[in-house]
């Protein structure tokens, strides 16, 4: 796997990167306590050009601190960090031309002006050649279905439309890497689907490297071949998503509506009924396994009315995984020291 990216294997490169904050905490009416917090604690990884990586972890684990160091907003307290060969904290503006950033809940678009006006500003601010700008705008607007909305003031856009608008703004200058912080948060199912489809295409067709943080496990499942899990500032896992499911030993839930109230379904192990409420039954099965055989079996043997699969919550997966890793002192990260 490492060999495959031999030429460009270290497009993003972190070597024992640290970020230490001094936090003043109020402990009483006038008393304050000074505490040293390691928001990022000796993290090392590399991302090859063209990879699409999910960066996940509980709130406050150090995800956004890492992103802020990668984009040059924050200066690391220690270690070595390079993006496209550039030290982000030293050459922030030079790096800005090569990266795109989308902050999920903070729009960079002009609230009272038509979408197109914001793009014109990007055109000039990033000094994008005219032909290139026009080409990119046409392509992005078509892919993200924003054609009819270019003349609409941003304040009149829905959350999903605004997010797509922000993604266009971040990509007009052909960044080689795109950072997305919670790109699907608060979006409806249709918008989520559009954003994901677009990101997949961007990565596959255009070779753009993508690093995203998310709370939505489906984002990761549908987009990322590789995930990194961070907790308490440390890299706890780095590998394929299936590995995450195995390590996290997480389960999906199959909700089955039967024609009538029946005794618990006798499902093939390891699937098992975890709850019964009238004609509705809940079955837990390993998240990594396919639901198809289980569904086929139940459909054959029981009077089935309806069914649905519930994805495991990402926080639950991470929590479970971190719990199972709790005893080992050496996190099983495949590439943590690559």
């Amino acid at each position, binding site marked *: 796997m490492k060999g495959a990216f031999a030429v460009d294997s270290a497009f993003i490169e972190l070597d024992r990167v640290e970020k230490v904050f001094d936090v003043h905490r109020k402990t009483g009416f006038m008393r304050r306590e000074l505490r040293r917090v390691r928001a990022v604690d000796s993290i090392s990884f590399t991302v090859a050009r063209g990879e699409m990586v999910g960066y996940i972890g509980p709130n406050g684990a150090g995800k956004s601190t890492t992103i802020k160091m990668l984009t040059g*907003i*924050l*200066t690391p307290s220690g270690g070595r960090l390079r993006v496209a060969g550039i030290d982000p904290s030293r050459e922030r503006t*030079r790096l800005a*031309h090569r990266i795109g*950033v989308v902050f999920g809940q*903070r729009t960079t678009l002009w609230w009272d002006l038509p979408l197109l006006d914001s793009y014109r500003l990007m055109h000039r601010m990033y000094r994008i050649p005219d032909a290139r700008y026009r080409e990119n705008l046409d392509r992005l607007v078509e892919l993200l279905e924003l054609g009819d909305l270019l003349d609409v003031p941003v304040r009149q856009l829905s959350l999903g439309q605004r997010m797509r608008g922000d993604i266009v703004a971040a990509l007009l200058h*052909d960044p080689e890497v795109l950072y997305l912080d919670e790109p699907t948060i608060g979006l409806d199912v249709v918008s989520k689907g559009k954003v994901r489809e677009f990101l997949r295409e961007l990565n596959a067709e255009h070779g753009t490297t993508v690093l995203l943080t998310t709370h939505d496990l489906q984002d990761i499942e549908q987009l990322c071949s590789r995930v990194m899990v961070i907790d308490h500032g440390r890299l706890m896992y780095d590998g394929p998503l299936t590995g995450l499911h195995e390590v996290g030993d997480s389960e999906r839930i199959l909700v089955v509506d039967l024609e009538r109230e029946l005794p618990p379904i006798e499902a093939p192990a390891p699937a098992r009924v975890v709850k019964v409420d009238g004609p509705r039954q809940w079955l837990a099965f390993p998240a990594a396994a396919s639901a198809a055989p289980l569904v086929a079996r139940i459909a054959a043997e029981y009077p089935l009315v309806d069914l649905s699969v519930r994805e495991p919550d990402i926080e639950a997966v991470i929590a479970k995984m971190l719990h199972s890793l709790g005893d080992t002192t050496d996190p099983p990260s495949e590439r943590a020291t690559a």
Partner: protein
Amino acid sequence: MAETGRVAGRDWAVEKDLGARSSRVVDGLRAYRMITAMWIRSTMAYRASFLMTTFGNFVATALDFVAVLLMFSRVDELGGYTLPQIAFLYGLSSTAFGLADLAVGSMEKLGRRVRDGTLDTLMVRPAPVLAQMAADQFGLRRLGRVTQGVLVLGYALATVDIDWTWAKVLLMPVMLVSGAAIFCAVFVAGASFQFVAQDAAEVQNAFTYGGTTLLQYPPTLFATELVRGVTFVLPLAFVNWVPATYVLGMPLPLGLPGWAAFLPPLVAAACCALAGLAWRAGLRSYRSTGS
């Protein structure tokens, strides 16, 4: 398709690197111009509100001068200065401050941008943060204050008794530009302080709004220590007091010699340099603490 995209992307990347190496000052001014233009267009989306707030800004500052007029309805002189002479000081202070407020006044919102995290969105763009921040929320309505200052200055020039020389005539625009630059420096320094104390935005009001109020009255009114402080420590006196007393033919504050009246450009340059250093220190502290 992927191949062509990448090859083209690489050439473009070289271009980008060349582009990114242009001067920071030029880059900053360019970004400032582009962002202010956006805000002006944005303001024009609510034209009625814009007219009303501009007018409000004008009236607010006009009432401030009405207070001076009320005082002179009861007295003929204040601290040895007549109404036209005070109007001269007032007009200079108000115009210089108004110009600074128009140019970089939004920097006082920095603390809020730090608190809600939106400063980060400026930091990932290829332009100096200072320029982006100064242009942020650019409010053309602040022209109301400039207008008031210019009108008061016009009234003063029409009524005041000045022995005009070429040096004094030349000093007028120099005074306004230097004064505005000094106030700009105060705004930037105040914003830099907000990197450290985000909630303390109001402190800078004491130096900005407080400063212009102080300078609207003659230096003879104030305690010597205070005048010394605003001459040698925070050199606001060079906005108008020092050069304007020279133009008016009044004694310069603190017995300063006549040539001190021609120092404002130098003082302004020094102030801007110091404010720039303060800004860099503030930004560096933000980038190391993230708060």
